């Protein structure tokens, strides 16, 4: 759709295509960011667990070895990636279905997301997770 715009100096035509999609609730956006945050927190917590417990570390490596090519060489990192991705995608599906028709306060959830990612980043800083794991 072209709109005629008259200014003081001249008349111009501006390409202004209206949005093709209908109005959608903010729930799916909240689901997208919160699931990403949960995936990142999972990575941080699983890593902390592997640092604290050898048995857990072996179990996490076993998860990676279930499907990832080269997981033997990659080590427990393969399992950490796997669990993080599973929580991210799994929680995204669940939250998307649960929130798809709900209009939520996106600003509030963005703050929750930022706090979560801040915690995940802090927990992944080696001196922090080594201290928490008792090393």
């Amino acid at each position: 759709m072209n709109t005629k715009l008259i200014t003081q100096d001249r008349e111009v035509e501006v390409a202004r295509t209206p949005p093709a999609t209908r109005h959608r609730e903010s729930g799916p956006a909240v689901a997208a960011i919160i699931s990403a945050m949960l995936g990142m927190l999972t990575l941080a917590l699983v890593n902390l667990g592997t640092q604290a417990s050898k048995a857990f570390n072996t179990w996490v490596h076993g998860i990676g070895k279930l499907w990832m090519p080269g997981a033997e060489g990659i080590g427990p990192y393969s399992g950490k990636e796997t669990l993080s991705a599973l929580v991210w995608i799994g929680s995204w599906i669940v939250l998307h279905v649960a929130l798809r028709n709900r209009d939520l306060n996106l600003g509030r959830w963005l703050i929750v997301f930022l706090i979560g990612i801040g915690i995940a980043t802090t927990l992944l800083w080696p001196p922090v997770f080594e201290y928490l794991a008792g090393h």
Partner: protein
Amino acid sequence: MSANEHLEERREASTASLALVVGILIGTAFAFLAATAPFTHLMGHSRAAVASAFHGLSAFLYLIVGTIGLYLAWRLWTGRIRAFADLQLLATVSATLSFIAILFGNWLYIYYRATDPESPRSWFMANMPMIHKIFFEFKEFVALFTLPLTVAAAFILWYYGAHVLDRKWMRYTVAVLLALSFFYLVVAFGLGAAVTKLRPA
């Protein structure tokens, strides 16, 4: 009020333009490859040559795309973006490059942490243990953050389309996702480059 202030590009990107961008990216990689033949010279001679070359190439391309994305994210935050379709494409390409970089990073990691004394990890643990224990370990984790962040940004941009422009917190959310993904990319890229410089795989 000038006419320029009304110039907004609100048209959404088409699938054809997305395919074109991906095609150009792949074509550029092949052109680079052909121009620097023979193949072994491009890749180097180490056992991790292929994995490290593609990991570095995808990360470098991502850095370029991410930088442009950061600028568009800032324009989106301020509500003065004119290239919404470009932002949709850039977020998608960023997510794709993040995935490819992680994929090749995983492969490269096998050589990095090999148990022989010549592997980078063995060498760092013997000579500079803090490089591995702090910088590499942090890098290998935060690099993964770029994928969910860019995927979430791309999802919101495509799912809501140009409605994003009319919703303040939606704009802020996408801008924050792209800015954070760029931050984690730069941290991972910088630390990765430093580690490679000190001891290539």
